[in-house]
């Protein structure tokens, strides 16, 4: 005999956790649109902000995503954004204007030194300080690409921002691995691993990135004109590259960034892609920001607020002053340099992944400096898009700007 429970849900309702994420996504997108329309703020602020508000760091209304699913999402979305970043950047420019390469190296070195110095002053062990300092080098590729796309920015500051972000992400990923390897060395796993691991990482990532770039170019040559088919293929390729990279214990981030750079370098052709390679990519990007907000951890701010704020301050000053010092030589005005320096400040997914990778290898890190970094990330993920948008507006490079 049929009972009510056969076709009516039982109480309490059993809901898949994915529903909460979907709900957060809908609210985040609506809030994002509201921010653009009424406050002229970037949409990402809404995506991250709603995640933060509803997640465990805020009102705790929505449970966190399971770590594995969250990681897959961030890997894919960040992969798309890194490949997009690489394909927007012209490496040949560095040859024509070596001052940009100089500015980029100075900016990275200054950031590392400033953060390293600050942490030593706070009595942090040298190796740990070095690991954190390498992570601090990176500017958020996700926020930069997303905000540049959204504000239709073009011009010297925009192009330098994209180029310097791509470069400092590369430095950060490689130096981070080196620093972690040193940490291993100190933990006593032997010199051979300290040398081999980064070599394997850099060589393997470069090789895979190159293969990806070649595959991409041949697909684009044959199918590039069918824009939709092409976007789907590309999206699948990014997923494959991400998964293969994880399997081989390489850095998916480095591979996709390198692949984008190689694609742009090999054929000096102008190429127009849809933002984030179509709407599937765009959905992932929105989801990633919301999920980042949900996963936000502000414990570090409670325990060591001074360190968090000082870290943000010295990192910002290091980036800003380096860009200002070489502005004249590299061919931009001081005002442009000021805006560029500010736009380099955001931190987000890439930094977060590096932090989590470190924590996975060294559990002590996750309860100590890891928390400090997480708080920096939350702050700079919320403020970052606003800073980039302000900077690009200040440089007069957004489309909405009218004189």
């Amino acid at each position: 005999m049929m009972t009510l429970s056969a076709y009516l849900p039982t109480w309490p309702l059993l809901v898949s956790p994915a529903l909460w994420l979907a709900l957060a996504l809908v609210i985040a997108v609506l809030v994002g649109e509201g921010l653009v329309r009424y406050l002229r703020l970037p949409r990402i602020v809404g995506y991250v902000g709603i995640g933060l508000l509803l997640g465990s760091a805020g009102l705790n209304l929505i449970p966190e995503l399971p770590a594995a699913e969250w990681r897959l999402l961030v890997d894919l979305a960040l992969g798309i954004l890194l490949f997009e970043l690489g394909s927007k950047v012209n490496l040949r420019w560095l040859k024509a204007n070596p001052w940009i390469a100089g500015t980029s190296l100075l900016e990275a070195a200054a950031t590392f030194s400033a953060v390293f110095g600050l942490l030593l002053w706070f009595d942090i062990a040298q190796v740990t300080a070095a690991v954190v300092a390498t992570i601090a080098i990176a500017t958020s590729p996700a926020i930069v690409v997303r905000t540049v796309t959204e504000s239709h920015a073009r011009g010297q500051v925009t192009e330098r921002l994209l180029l310097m972000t791509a470069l400092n992400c590369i430095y950060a990923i490689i130096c981070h691995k080196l620093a972690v390897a040193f940490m291993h060395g100190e933990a006593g796993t032997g010199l051979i691993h300290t040398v081999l691991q980064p070599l394997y990482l850099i060589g393997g990532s470069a090789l895979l990135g190159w293969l990806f770039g070649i595959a991409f170019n041949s697909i684009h040559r044959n199918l590039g004109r069918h824009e939709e088919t092409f976007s789907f293929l590309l999206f699948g390729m990014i997923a494959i590259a991400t998964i293969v990279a994880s399997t081989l214990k390489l850095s998916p981030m480095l591979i996709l960034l390198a692949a984008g750079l190689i694609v742009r370098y090999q054929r000096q052709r102008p190429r127009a892609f849809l933002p984030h390679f179509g709407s599937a990519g765009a959905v992932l990007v929105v989801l990633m920001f919301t999920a980042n907000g949900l996963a936000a951890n502000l414990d570090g701010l409670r325990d060591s607020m001074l360190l968090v704020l000082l870290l943000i301050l010295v990192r910002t000053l290091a980036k800003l002053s380096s860009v200002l010092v070489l502005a004249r030589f590299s061919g931009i005005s001081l005002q442009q340099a000021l805006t560029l320096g500010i736009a380099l400040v955001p931190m987000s997914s890439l930094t977060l992944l590096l932090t989590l990778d470190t924590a996975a290898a060294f559990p002590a890190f996750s309860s100590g400096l890891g928390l400090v970094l997480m708080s920096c990330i939350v702050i700079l993920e919320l403020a970052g898009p606003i800073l980039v948008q302000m900077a690009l507006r200040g440089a007069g490079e957004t489309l909405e700007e009218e004189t």
Partner: protein
Amino acid sequence: MSLMPFAASRPLSIGVELELQLLDCNDYDLISSAPDMLRRIARQTHHGEIKPEMTRSMIEINTSVQYEYASLVEELRSLRNTVADAGRFLNIAVAGGGTHPFQHWSEQKIFDAPRFHYLSDLYGYLAKQFTIFGQHVHIGCPTPDEALYLLHMLSRYVPHFIALSASSPFVQGHDTGFASARLNSVFSFPLSGRAPFVLRWEGFERFFSKMTGTGVVESMKDFYWDIRPKPEFGTIEVRVCDTPLTVEIAAAIACYIQAMARYIMEERPGEPQEDDYLVYTFNRFQACRFGLEGVFIDPRTHEQRSLREDIADMLLRIADHATELQAGEAMAQIRQILATGNGASWLRQTYAHEHNLSDVVQQQAKLWMND
């Protein structure tokens, strides 16, 4: 305000102004980078002058006063190298051509200078649509009356200059069917067209003071005529040419005009008549629309022929003058254009090959920057 007195200048001296397009190296759309380019260029010593233009995606190069093709082309090449080097340093491409094939006029930003803001307020969207790129050629005249004589005699040949330099077939992403679509943008300005039929400078001064009296104009700059006198330089300025795709072609066209001016001044082939202008707009339209294939109606004989034939005929008539001016190489270039086509046909061929306007602009920039 009265008209400036006509400065004396060496007869047949020439000066060339070229308006150039600044391009984003990623998508080859126009980019508002004139302030960056000018800041970079200001730090270097260079020939001639490099100046801002109406919108921030344009830049203008001016030669000094020149007399011969060889030195003119040398100065233009040096100016080109200065601009191209600054472009490479800033990751900005620079190209010739009369229009940008797919730019959107509403995205252009007005260069921050009082005159450009004034014009932008006055002309509204026309000012932004004026993101077009022309070549202006100055010809030195010994006296103002001689300048007016030369101006009206040269008017017959305006279609030659249009057809030879035409390099603006694409506008807003489409093939317009015109060889020079750029001039269609010029014609929408209220004070465009031809100079009034006045052959004495006193008469021209009277015309000018009557016009300023109406409040319609303030200076000669407000007239967008095809050829206009430039009293402060002692020149007349031919303004109908598109910026060609290379500086070499620009120099050759300037020298073609110079040789023709010498022919007119030395041989004085008749006096200009008001009725010469009866066919003026028809001939000019034919040149804009069809380029070298356009029909040309002789204002005196009413005979019809193609512009290509009329130019070939003219080349024979001015051959001695060109030799006197050491412009043999320039005339060879003009013959080359008659044989292989103008910039518009190069752009169309490139598009037929590339199927993509961004790629066309990239090739166009490569050609101009001499990469």
